[in-house]
């Protein structure tokens, strides 16, 4: 992989991280008044998968969508404005953090009913298959989501019709504060997908190049008409399930576990790797950081100076 491609991956992860950190920092100001699920620690999945997609491809996502949205090229301004509930938000304020959309960027929508968008992605893939378009559709969801029957129904139909859809399961071992072993028997998730007949892969969700490599393969096969693909990626959520803070005090995971999770930081480890391969990239990173900070500042300014929706804006567009 070229140095510039590698830097682009790093930059994309860093950008998501910094944006979410900025959101977390400002959350306490009480102006972003909606539930928010940060993906800090899981950026490599969003970035690695989306790097394997082209603009015309479609992505659906869930409650933890900021990273997916940004990695796919969703407008930062429209996202931040949405968190602030402003008229310039991607849903005009109607959605908030849990409802993102940017059709120009191929980000088809994220919603917080767990499992809700999984069949939608299959339906989008079905449409592109019937239209014989080149489009591949990706859906991001979590290990908890895998427990929803609708996921299995979706895989069955996707395989039956050999649809160009890639299921990306982010396994962070938790559904809210409940561990996988209180919700599922011990067996690999991706094996169930395999038994449904899907091509299935598993990998380290902290390794952006590994994610990209698996995704390239899966997306390529899907595009070639080889049918649905399933990728299970392991990662770790650093902060609380919902909200801006760390949650060490809740004691549902040990300090040691959190430390280990943070130690596997996809950004830090990738930075180390790039430095090992390419020598010092300190300056490049600094430039990125500066650009990102400028972009973030502008986005918050955009949001805060945007129109506040009125009662009229909350009405209408109930029916198309």
């Amino acid at each position, binding site marked *: 992989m070229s140095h510039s491609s590698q830097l682009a991956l790093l930059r994309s992860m860093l950008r998501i991280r910094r944006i979410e950190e900025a959101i977390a920092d400002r959350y306490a100001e009480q102006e972003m008044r909606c539930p928010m699920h940060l993906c800090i620690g899981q950026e490599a999945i969003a970035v690695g998968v989306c790097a394997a997609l082209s603009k015309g491809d479609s992505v659906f996502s869930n409650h933890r969508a900021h990273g997916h949205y940004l990695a796919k090229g969703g407008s930062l301004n429209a996202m931040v404005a949405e968190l602030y509930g402003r008229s310039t938000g991607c849903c005009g304020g109607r959605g908030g953090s849990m409802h993102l959309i940017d059709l120009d960027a191929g980000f088809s929508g994220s919603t917080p009913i767990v499992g809700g968008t999984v069949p939608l992605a299959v339906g989008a893939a079905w449409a592109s298959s019937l239209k014989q378009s080149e489009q591949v559709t990706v859906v991001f969801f979590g290990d908890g989501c895998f427990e929803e029957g609708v996921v299995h129904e979706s895989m069955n139909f996707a395989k039956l019709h050999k649809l160009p859809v890639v299921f990306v399961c982010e396994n962070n071992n938790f559904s809210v504060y409940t561990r996988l072993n209180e919700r599922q028997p011990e067996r690999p998730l991706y094996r169930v997908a395999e038994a449904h007949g899907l091509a299935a892969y598993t990998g380290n969700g902290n390794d952006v190049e590994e994610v990209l490599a698996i995704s390239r393969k899966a997306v390529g096969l899907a595009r070639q008409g080889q049918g649905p693909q399933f990728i299970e990626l392991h990662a770790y959520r650093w902060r609380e399930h919902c909200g801006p803070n760390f949650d060490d005090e809740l004691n549902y995971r040990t300090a040691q576990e959190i430390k280990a999770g943070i130690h596997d930081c996809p950004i830090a480890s990738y930075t180390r790797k790039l430095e090992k391969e390419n020598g010092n990239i300190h300056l490049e990173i600094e430039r990125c950081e500066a650009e990102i900070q400028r972009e973030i500042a502008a986005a918050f300014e955009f949001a805060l100076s945007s129109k506040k929706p009125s009662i009229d804006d909350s009405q209408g567009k*109930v029916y198309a």
Partner: protein
Amino acid sequence: MKHRDITFAEAIREGLDQSMEKDPRVIVIGEGVPDPKAIFNTTAGLRDKYGNRRVFDMPLSENGMTGICIGAALSGLRPVMVHQRIDFALLAMDQLINNAAKWHYMFDGKASVPLVVRMIVGRGWGQGPQHSQSLQAMFAHAPGIKVIMPTTAYDAKGMLISAIEDNNPVLFIEHRLLHQIKDNVPEEYYRVPLGQAKVLHEGDAVTVAAFSYMAVEALVAAKALKSAMGIGIDVLDMRSVRPLDVASVLNSVRKTGQLIVADTASRTGSIAGELISQVSEQAFDALRTHPVRIACPDHPAPTSHFMTRHYYPGPQMIADEVLKMVGADKTSTNYRELCALMLHDGPHDAPNRGFTGPF
């Protein structure tokens, strides 16, 4: 225009056929759609004509398949999905209510879900507790969804076409006992607007607003009342549950001052209650007496035909309520004539004499 009587089921088939012919984005999917029975013949021949890339059977995965159809609708197709019984659609409530109904609103109009879901309300021949619910009120509580219940073959075709052309999720609810009823249906492609009641019979005494098959029953009552007792009533076929055409009912009630609402559902929480409430809220002064609701009792539908005989309200109950309202004499010979006119031809639990079950 040439007069041509075809059944409600044939009208649906023709509506599907012409929609598919006209718009290549229309696809049809459902359990049994291409099978030999073709959903009571409403999808017969479609696969032969449009091929297996537009006409699909589907796995038994109601929630998943609804979501898949929503995804397809978001991506430019116009799916028509079919459930052989509305009861099965309860499995798909999540996708219908959380996604289909809200997508357009919550994404600020950036996308829409042009999806039609046909749902068949079972009745007769021991359909029983899990195969003969009439659930329109549950679905109609969700803003963002349209729920329609055509009664005549003419409306079935025209409203199906409008539903397919509509950019919103439209639930098209068909009562099983309507499928074999014939009506004059034009051969060409035509639309009947969604959300408007239709006057089936006119009179000054009482307004009867009826949904789906109950409009058929109300018309039987209206004709009998007229001919046996000289009592004229307005019968409105509501045709749509959401939007609910309250204005038409108000119009009629302003004339008659008395309202009966007849619904296919079980009583409490039915859309009949909603309509009565809206009329009471909006035209209280026009009402001369208390409105009346006619609906199924508040228990699940039993299976035994010995019990279904009393489960479903029919023309007799409607006529009796009308007579109560107008203060007519039920001991007269005219009343006996009225009752005779309303007698159902054939067994009460089958659509017609020739029927030998099951369905």
